[in-house]
C-alpha cells in the first residue's frame, strides 16, 4: 500500500514537472498557459478558421494579377488593397496613404521647406509668378508678381508642368538657383540669382476691412500657424480694431498643438479638449498660461461644412466658453484624432487612435445614413447663413461674400456702429492656391 502511494506520488511529481516544462514559455512571459495550449498535448487542435485572412488577401491579389482581362499595375493593386483593408473599419479618417500622398501630407503639416518663397502658376512658356512672399529670398532678389520664369539654371522650362518647375526651384537651404525671367517692359530676359532659404508657408491671411473690422483667415493648422496668427492679430490691433472676424471656412484642420496655442490667446489654463484613447485612458489638453490677450471688441467665427477637426475644436471651444459668435453653416463633425505610422517604402497609415470631446462634453461626430447622406454632427452655428452661390462669391470680400457680410452685421449689432461695405478688391484668380517654390 505504502509502495503504491510512493509510485503514485512519483508519477504525480513527474507529471507536474512535465507541465511546468511545457508551460515554461508562458511563465517566462508572466502569464498562465491557456486551456488551448494543453489540449494541444493531446493532439486536440483549437477550432481555427479554415483560411487565414492573409491567405484570402494573397489569393485574391494573385487571382486578379493573373486572370484579369488586361494587365494591372501591381503596386497600385497592392495599395488599393491596403486602402480597402483600412476602409473595412468604416472610419473615413483611417486610411492608407501611398508614398506620393504621404509625402504631400508630411509637407502640409510641416508647412516649411527650402526654396525662394513665391507661388507659381501655369504658363505655356514656363511658370508665371503669382505671389511673392514678404521678406522672402525671391523678394530680396527682385522677383515680381506676374514675372514669367522661362528657364531654371540655364535650362528651358517651356512646356514643363508647374509642379515639376517648383521642384527644380526648391533645393537645399543656402544653395543658389538662377532664373531666366521675362518681364513686361524689359526687352531681354533678366537673369536673377536667388539664394534658397527656409520658406514657411503662410497659413494665415489677414486684412483690415472698412469700419475697423479685422479679418483673419486661417487656411490650415500647421506648425507655424500659431505664430502667424498672433502676428496677424498684433498687426490688426496696431491699426485700431473694433471687431474681429476669424474665418475657418474650408479649413480641414491640422495639428492639435497649433490650435491649442491659438486658443491660449483667448483662454488661460482651461481644458479645450479631452481625448479618449482605446484603453479608456483620457488625455486632457489645456491652454497655456501667459498668452491671453486683452481685448474688448466682439469676435465672430465663420465656419462651414468643410471646417473640420482642429477648426471645429477652435470654433467649438470659443462657442462653449461664449467667447465668439459662430456664423455660417454647421461644421463637418470630425471628432477623432489620427496618428500617422510610416512604412519603409515611403507610404504610411493614418489611423484613428482616439476620440475627442469638447469642454461641454458634446459628441460632434458626423452621422450618415446608409446611403452616405448627412444626418447630424458637427458644431451648430449661432447664426445660420448659407453661402449664396450666384454670382460666384469671392470669399473674404464683404460685398460678394454674404456670410462675411452677415458676420460684420453681427459685430455692428454688438458695437452699435454701422459699417459701410468697401469696394470689391480684384485678386488674381486662383493665385493664392498655386504651388510654392
Amino acid at each position, binding site marked *: 500500500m505504502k509502495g503504491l502511494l510512493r509510485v503514485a506520488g*512519483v508519477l504525480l511529481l*513527474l507529471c507536474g*514537472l*512535465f507541465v*511546468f*516544462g*511545457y*508551460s*515554461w*514559455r508562458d511563465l517566462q512571459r508572466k502569464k498562465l498557459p491557456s486551456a488551448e495550449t494543453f489540449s494541444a*498535448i493531446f493532439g486536440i487542435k483549437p477550432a481555427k*478558421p*479554415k*483560411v487565414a*485572412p*492573409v*491567405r*484570402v*488577401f494573397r489569393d*485574391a*491579389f494573385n*487571382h*486578379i494579377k493573373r*486572370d*484579369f*482581362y*488586361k*494587365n494591372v499595375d501591381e*503596386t497600385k493593386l497592392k495599395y*488599393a*488593397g*491596403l*486602402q*480597402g*483593408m*483600412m*476602409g*473595412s*473599419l468604416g*472610419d473615413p479618417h483611417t486610411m*492608407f496613404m501611398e*508614398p506620393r500622398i504621404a509625402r504631400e501630407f508630411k509637407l502640409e503639416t510641416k508647412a516649411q521647406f527650402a526654396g525662394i518663397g513665391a507661388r507659381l502658376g501655369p504658363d505655356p512658356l514656363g511658370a508665371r509668378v503669382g505671389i511673392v512672399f514678404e521678406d522672402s529670398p525671391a523678394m530680396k532678389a527682385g522677383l515680381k508678381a506676374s514675372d514669367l520664369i522661362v528657364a531654371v539654371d540655364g535650362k528651358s522650362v517651356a512646356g514643363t508642368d508647374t509642379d515639376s518647375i517648383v521642384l527644380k526651384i526648391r533645393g537645399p537651404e543656402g544653395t543658389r538657383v538662377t532664373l531666366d525671367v521675362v518681364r513686361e517692359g524689359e526687352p531681354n530676359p533678366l537673369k536673377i540669382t536667388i539664394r534658397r532659404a527656409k520658406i514657411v508657408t503662410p497659413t494665415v491671411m489677414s486684412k483690415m476691412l472698412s469700419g475697423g473690422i479685422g479679418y483673419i483667415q486661417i487656411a490650415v493648422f500647421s506648425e507655424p500657424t500659431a505664430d502667424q496668427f498672433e502676428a496677424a492679430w498684433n498687426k490688426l490691433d496696431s491699426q485700431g480694431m473694433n471687431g474681429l472676424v476669424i474665418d475657418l471656412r474650408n479649413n480641414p484642420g491640422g495639428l492639435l498643438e497649433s490650435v491649442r496655442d491659438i486658443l491660449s490667446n483667448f483662454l488661460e489654463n482651461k481644458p479645450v479638449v479631452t481625448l479618449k*484613447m*482605446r484603453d479608456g485612458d483620457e488625455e486632457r489638453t489645456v491652454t497655456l498660461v501667459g498668452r491671453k490677450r486683452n481685448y474688448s471688441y466682439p469676435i465672430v467665427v465663420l465656419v462651414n461644412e468643410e471646417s473640420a477637426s482642429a477648426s471645429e475644436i477652435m470654433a467649438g471651444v470659443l462657442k462653449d466658453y461664449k467667447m465668439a459668435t459662430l456664423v455660417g453653416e454647421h461644421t463637418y463633425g470630425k471628432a*477623432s484624432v489620427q496618428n500617422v*505610422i*510610416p*512604412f*519603409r*517604402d*515611403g507610404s504610411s*497609415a493614418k*489611423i484613428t*487612435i*482616439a476620440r475627442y470631446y469638447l469642454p461641454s462634453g458634446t459628441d460632434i461626430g458626423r452621422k450618415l445614413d446608409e446611403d*452616405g*447622406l448627412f444626418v447630424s454632427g458637427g458644431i451648430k452655428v449661432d447664426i445660420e447663413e448659407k453661402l449664396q*452661390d*450666384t*454670382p460666384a462669391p469671392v470669399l473674404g470680400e464683404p460685398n460678394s461674400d454674404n456670410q462675411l457680410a452677415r458676420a460684420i452685421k453681427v459685430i455692428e449689432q454688438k458695437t452699435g456702429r454701422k459699417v459701410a461695405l468697401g469696394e470689391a478688391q480684384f485678386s488674381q484668380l486662383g493665385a493664392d492656391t498655386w504651388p510654392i517654390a
Partner: protein
Amino acid sequence: MGKSDRSSIYRSAGFMVLCLGAAFGGILLREQQSIQEPVFGLDRLVASTGTQPIPEDDYFTELAEILKTHYVDPIGDEMKFATGGVRGMIESLGDLHSLYYDKNEFRLLISSLQGKYEGIGADLAFLYPTKGSNDESDAIPRVTVLSVVPGGPAAKAGMKPGDWIDSVDGHWVINSQFINKAREIQQKVQSKELPQTALDDIRRELKQRADNAITPVRAWKRLMAGVAERVEIGVFRGENRMEFDVGKALSERPKLPDAIRPVFLPGGEKQLAAAIAGKASLRFDLRGMSTGDYRVMADCLNVLGYKGNLGSIVRQNGRASIPIVAKGSGQKRQVVMVVDGSTRGVAEVFALAAKKGGAKIEGASANRAVATQLDMLPDGSGYTLNIGTYSAGGSK
C-alpha cells in the same frame, strides 16, 4: 559503503534524471508545437526612408498588426481586413464586370442567378450610355433594367427592359444625363445663346441633386433587397422620364416547359448532368441570365458532351487568349439555346461556345459575352472578375 547505500544513490540519481527528463520533455514538446505558430512582431515595422517595395503579404500582416494595436476600437474579426482588401483591389480596377458584393449583396446575386428574386424582381446591370468597348472609364454607368421577372413587382408596375434608373425614393442616382445637360447650357451661355441666369439655375439644381445623390451600386442594392416595403423609382425610357411605385415582393422566374436553366455556380455542372441524363434532345432557356462562374460554365460544356475547340476568351494588352477546349465524351445531342437581349455574360459565352459545337440558337443575344469568374470569400461576401470576352475565332 553498504549495498543499500549505493542502491539508494542510484535510485535518487535515476529519480532526478526522470524529473529533469519530464521537465525538458515538456519544454521540447512545446517548442516543437510552437514552430508552426506564426509570430508577429513590430520589429519589422521600423520606419526608415528606403524605397524598396514591400511584398503584399508582409504589408498585410504588418498593417493588420498596427491596426490591432493602435485603432481606437477593438477590431473583432480580422477577416474583414482581408475582404475589405479584396473590395479595395476589385474596385480599383474600375471595371463594370468586376464587382465586389458584400455578404447580403452576394446572397441576393446568387439567389437571382438561380431565378429567385427579392426586391422589384428584375435583373439590373451597370451599363455605359453608349454601346462600345469594354473600357469606357470616363463615363458614368447607368443602372439599367436587363429583364423583368414575368409577373414580378417590376413587371406588374409596367417597367420594361431598357429602362434605366434616374432616381430611387427621391434620391438622384448619379448619371451623366443631367451633367451633360448642364454642360450644354454652359456652352450656350458662353456663346451668348442663353442668359447667365440659365447657368446659375442649372448649377443650383446640380448642387441640390448632388447633395441628395446615391451611387449606382447603392441603388442596385435598394432595388434588389427587401420583400415588404414600397419604392418609388424614376426611370428614363428613351427620352421620356417616368415614375413607378413598386411594391417589393419575392418573385421567381418561370421557365419554358421542358427547358433547362443551367446555374453557373459551384455544383452547377452536377445539377446539369442530372438534368440531362438519358435525354437526346435538350432545350436551354438562357433569357434573363447574365453573370456566373466561367469555370463552372466550361465544365457544363463538357457535361453536354462537346469535344475540341469552341472558340476563345480574348484579352487585352498582349495578354494571351484563353482557348475553350471542351473535353466531353463526344456524344452527339440535339441542343437548342433560347436567348434574347437579356442573355449576356457567362450565359452568353455558354450559348456561343455551344453554337460553335453545333447547338442551335433561338433569338438574338446581347453581344456582351464577357467571361467572369465568381469567387466567394469566407465571410459570405464575394466578387466577380472579368477575364475576357468571347470570340468564336481561335486563340492567338
